[in-house]
């Protein structure tokens, strides 16, 4: 697996008034305040803000969840589930942080082999 340099300054931003259905792929950091249904594959940091509603299978390097997320999530480094988050589904990552107040339903696995390609 190639190590990605995570940029602190996001280049992509999906605002609250936007809804995306389909697949979203890319290499840049992304902040989502809107709705995404489908698939997200990002070679960087994904931030799901409080207003966001995501129903998707997600593959990313790092993930911060402050909002709603439903789906299967595979992260190669770190998942942070903050207190405002509502998550249901499966989380796979070597490191996962869940803050008090967060709601989570589903499955967590912290030790797994990375699939080819991420």
């Amino acid at each position, binding site marked *: 697996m190639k190590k990605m340099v995570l940029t602190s300054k*996001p*280049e*992509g*931003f*999906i*605002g*609250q*008034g*936007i*809804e*995306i*259905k*389909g*697949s*979203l*792929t*890319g*290499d*840049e950091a*992304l902040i989502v*305040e*809107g709705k995404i249904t*489908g698939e997200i594959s990002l070679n960087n940091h994904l931030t799901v803000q409080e207003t966001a509603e995501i129903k998707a299978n997600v593959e990313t390097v790092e993930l911060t969840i402050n909002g709603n997320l439903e789906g299967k999530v595979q992260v190669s480094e770190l998942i942070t589930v903050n207190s405002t988050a509502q998550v249901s589904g499966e989380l796979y990552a070597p490191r996962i942080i869940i803050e008090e107040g967060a709601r989570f339903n589903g499955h967590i696995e912290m030790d797994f082999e990375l699939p080819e390609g991420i």
Partner: protein
Amino acid sequence: MSNTVIGQTLVIDGEIVGDESLTILGTVKGRIELNNKLLVENEGNVEADIIVDNITVNGTVTGNVDAREKIEIESTGQMIGDIRTPKLSIKEGAIFKGQIDMVME
């Protein structure tokens, strides 16, 4: 209201619907329906049918565009598709191929 930016490395295949302004520097394939302004920057590449209030094209757009207010194809813009709009500007240097239907307001 905040402006949504599809950055340069992002590829979206599907549908984007919304009511806030959208700037595309990356690639979008599928369908865009926006009750606001769409800006396709130089690096932007859009292959989609588009319904929007107004659109400014600096990059490449392939697809049919229905604008409620205005279509602007700037000098670096390339557009292939049928368009429907009450107001249209095509700058020198721009490339356009398609049908134009200037609807009366």
